């Protein structure tokens, strides 16, 4: 059902383990049910936590009475917002004013702002009892009008969520580059698009959030077993709020059941667990159930694009655009308003237009807080740029393929500096499109259209693309708030030789299925001249391993750059130390005369002079008498990879915001049932270019997964609210995620344009799903002949389109 077509690689494939589809090291335990996910972690005497959640989208809390719940046998205790406000400070806000002024605690204090917001936490002896007791907690509410539609947020008289912010506006910024007026003057046409809407959904990792938190009273330290995918971020949110040093918060993870960005912002719940573990002096276990997750965790950013104007030449050359982006953050700024700048990593999309103005407004609404979701903030913007391409093609009566090719940034333009100072490292978008079109048999479409017509169907072909910008320059946060003291990026790896010669790698990341153990082992094996089987990569993350830095985590398509570069750096340090040691042992042989191979180090010209790694480890760790005094070797090498970034120009909002730009181009072929509006994806191609692929099979797996999520989001998945702020898709009963029968035939293809900016030529990847959402929109537009303005197109919407 799937075929892989490889275009000729533009560079010679590196020899060795890198570039091979080595089978994953992590699979065995997962296939045997021996993975350790957060809900598998148990402790003697632990109490189970259940949250009492708000049934109201917006209400004052007038009274809370936990006495009936606490009176039950087996209930260990409760925590209310009032206690939280006394014990902690509000979470640090990333935003400048007015968003900076909101007061965000880990439980609702005085007011609830979305259905499902945690109000009280109850801990009891069993899971069932905790839920029983939570039903006895009495909370009186005084309901307020709910604000559900972000477009009404700034209307006079609109319900206000945060009085501290003086209104619902959280953050606003004007981005302007080039000379838009001259572009409009030069244009033959101005294409106007009144409104485009990118809907609210997320990746719904199959495992929801959770934690088991232990408090060590003696040293005042918490051990937080959790599946949070960005512990570095959780720590800087939690430490100041809890008024403790970061070393008091030990984060431990082994296996994580999917993250996709959705597991970054569980810090409020983790604080509640911490406070209760201390208050009750026992381990506290929290498992978030599916409905809880849908109600309260990490929705993707819903965004509108209003009053778009596009300056176009008659031949389809695009000169520039202006638009107003309105972003719905939900009730709290848990990672926001970073979405207000992250999109700017891909400002022009894949196209050469140079004159761009975008006004970005983010507002609060009575809905679940948003936070990163696979393709975070770029997906919305890239969907917009792709939609513009197809709407322009539609308006001008041009072929969408031709419009794209006319405007693509060309391979010879690379590295390409965008109007806002980002540098696209490498790529050949036109070649990718050709490959994708070939994979769906684009040349045969005329016949297939006729065939579909004969069956009462209408065939449509659509193209979508994403730039999977990876490895953030956190300096971009200063465009949001100039006061912030973040910039650059980093990641850590530690590689050591143990006493019996075992190669042990410790990462700083928190993988959720990306195969880090495997690809890290491949990189190590190539440098040390051994097999990946000989490399032991520790599973998961423990902040007490001291192999992490401030930006450590698994997010934002960066492991292939940050993680593997750190692994490479640490392994090269280790290799140098091994040679230094061997040189000394061999009696002053210079490093250049030595090589690593066959699980040891040897003299190039005298292979019999061989020191196995086991001997190296033993000598340094256990048998080191007589070594030269000045031999600076530990065989335990920690390397911090720091990508080459400058702080962006805050005034001009200009600078390089990301290191690498992987690209994906997808083509979808749909058949629309004219009578019902239902449609089927009958053919699909996804072409990826993420530079050098360390493990092509893992890369292809990421492409497939992102594609499936895109198709789910395009057709079915939506967090839809009613006018009172009730979530209408609170679990998988109504939030339909694709299953095996929903999947179309898929052809994948790849080209490799190595990044000139990274040590391994790699680019981070994995977030290419936005291409699929757009490809479906474009295919529906092609089939129906009607302009598609929404990213979510369930059958009813397509039927309505055809009624126009």
């Amino acid at each position, binding site marked *: 059902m799937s075929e892989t077509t490889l275009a000729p690689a533009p560079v010679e494939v590196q020899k060795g383990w890198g570039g091979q589809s080595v089978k994953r090291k992590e699979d065995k335990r997962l296939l045997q049910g021996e993975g350790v996910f957060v809900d598998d972690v148990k402790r003697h005497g632990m109490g189970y936590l259940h949250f009492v959640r708000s*049934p*109201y989208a917006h209400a004052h809390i007038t009274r809370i009475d936990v006495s009936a719940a606490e009176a039950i046998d087996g209930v260990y205790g409760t925590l209310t917002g009032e206690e939280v406000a006394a014990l902690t400070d509000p979470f640090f806000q990333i935003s400048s004013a007015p968003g900076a002024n909101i007061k965000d605690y880990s439980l609702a204090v005085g007011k609830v702002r979305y*259905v*499902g917001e945690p109000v009280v936490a109850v801990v009891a002896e069993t899971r069932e009892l905790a839920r029983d007791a939570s*039903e006895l907690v009495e909370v009186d509410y005084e309901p307020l009008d709910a604000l559900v539609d972000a477009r009404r947020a700034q209307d006079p008289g609109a319900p206000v969520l945060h009085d501290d912010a003086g209104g619902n506006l959280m953050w606003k910024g004007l981005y302007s580059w080039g000379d838009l007026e001259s572009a409009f003057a030069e244009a033959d046409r101005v294409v106007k698009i009144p409104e485009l809407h990118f809907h609210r959904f997320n990746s719904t990792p199959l495992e929801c959030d959770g934690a088991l938190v232990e408090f060590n009273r003696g040293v005042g330290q918490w051990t937080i077993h959790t599946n949070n995918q960005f512990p570095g971020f959780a720590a800087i949110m939690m430490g100041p709020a809890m008024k403790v040093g970061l070393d008091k918060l030990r984060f431990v993870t082994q296996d994580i059941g999917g993250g996709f960005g959705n597991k970054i912002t569980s810090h409020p719940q983790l604080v509640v667990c911490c406070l209760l573990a201390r208050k009750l002096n026992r381990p506290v276990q929290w498992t978030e159930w599916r*409905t809880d997750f*849908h*109600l309260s965790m990490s929705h993707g950013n819903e965004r509108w694009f209003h009053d778009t104007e596009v300056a176009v030449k008659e031949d389809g050359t695009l000169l520039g655009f202006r638009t107003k982006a309105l972003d719905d953050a939900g009730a709290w700024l848990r990672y926001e308003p970073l979405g207000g700048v992250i999109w700017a990593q891909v400002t022009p999309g894949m196209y050469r237009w140079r004159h761009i103005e975008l006004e970005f407004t983010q507002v609060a609404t009575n809905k679940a807080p948003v936070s990163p979701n696979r393709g975070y903030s770029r997906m919305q913007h890239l969907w917009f740029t792709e939609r513009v391409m197809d709407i322009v093609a539609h308006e001008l009566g041009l072929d969408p393929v031709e419009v794209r090719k006319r405007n693509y940034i060309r391979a010879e333009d690379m590295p390409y500096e965008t109007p806002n100072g980002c540098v696209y490292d490498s790529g050949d978008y036109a070649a990718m499109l050709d490959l994708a079109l070939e994979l769906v048999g684009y040349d045969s479409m005329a016949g297939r259209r006729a065939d579909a017509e004969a069956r009462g169907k209408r065939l449509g072909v659509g193209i979508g693309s994403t730039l999977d910008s990876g490895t953030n320059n956190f300096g971009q946060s200063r465009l949001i708030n100039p006061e912030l003291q973040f910039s650059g990026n980093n990641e850590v790896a530690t590689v050591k030789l143990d006493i019996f010669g075992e190669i042990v790698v410790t990462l700083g990341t928190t993988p959720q299925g990306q195969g880090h153990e495997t690809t890290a082992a491949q990189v190590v094996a190539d440098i040390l001249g051994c097999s990946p089987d000989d490399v032991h990569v520790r599973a998961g993350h423990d902040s007490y391993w001291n192999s992490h830095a401030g930006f450590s985590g698994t997010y934002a398509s960066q492991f292939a750059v940050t993680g593997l570069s750190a692994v490479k750096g640490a392994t090269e340090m280790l290799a140098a130390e091994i040679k230094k040691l061997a040189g000394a042992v061999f009696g002053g042989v210079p490093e250049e005369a030595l090589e690593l191979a066959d699980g040891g180090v040897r003299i190039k010209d005298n292979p019999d002079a061989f020191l196995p790694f086991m001997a190296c480890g033993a000598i340094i760790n256990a048998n080191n008498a007589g070594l030269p005094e000045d031999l600076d070797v530990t065989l335990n090498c920690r390397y911090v990879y720091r990508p080459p970034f400058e702080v962006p120009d805050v005034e001009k909002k200009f600078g390089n915001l990301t290191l690498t730009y992987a690209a994906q181009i997808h083509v979808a072929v749909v058949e629309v049932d004219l009578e019902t509006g239902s449609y089927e994806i009958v053919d699909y191609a996804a072409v990826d270019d993420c530079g050098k692929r360390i493990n092509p099979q893992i890369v292809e797996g990421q492409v497939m997964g992102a594609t499936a999520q895109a198709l789910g989001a395009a057709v079915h998945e939506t967090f839809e609210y009613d006018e*009172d702020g*009730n*979530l*209408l*898709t*609170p*679990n998988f*009963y*109504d939030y339909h995620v694709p299953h095996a029968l929903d999947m179309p035939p898929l052809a994948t293809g790849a080209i490799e344009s190595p990044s000139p900016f990274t040590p391994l030529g790699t680019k981070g990847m994995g977030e290419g799903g936005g291409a699929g959402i757009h490809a479906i929109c474009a295919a529906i537009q092609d089939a129906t002949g009607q302009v598609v303005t929404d990213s979510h197109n369930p059958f009813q919407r397509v039927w309505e389109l055809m009624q126009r």
Partner: protein
Amino acid sequence: MNVSGERTFAAPRDTVWHVLNDPASMAKTMPGVESFDIHDDKRWTANVKIPLGLGGLKMKVDMEKVEEREPEFAKLAVKGNGVGAIMNMMTSFTLADAAGGATSMAWAAEVKILGPVGSMGQRVLQPIVNQQVQHVLTALDGQVQEAMGKTA
């Protein structure tokens, strides 16, 4: 969801008003009432059990009279809790004299279901509301007749 209608009772307005505003009489109109507490003349609580194909739904129903103009208008805030969701109902009724010494009652209820019930829950709860309204109206007839009997 809004439900409304009109009903004529063969009884004078005062009698109907009395029944409508007497918690004890009202309790008897509610189907499946297992217990009933009167907190004061404006606030009552009923524990009800609604029979359904899936098994009985148990609800705690709080009622509060939020507005009244004797003997023509009253407004009740009703909140049902305990089915994984909250059912909020603002009910009002307006009484007027009708021909032949009868009383006409125009009633309206605005029903809101709050909570993570999804479409399955909506399908369970909405028919309950309709069913309950019908039961209450039928039972009201009986209560009014009984009150007529007492006064006669």
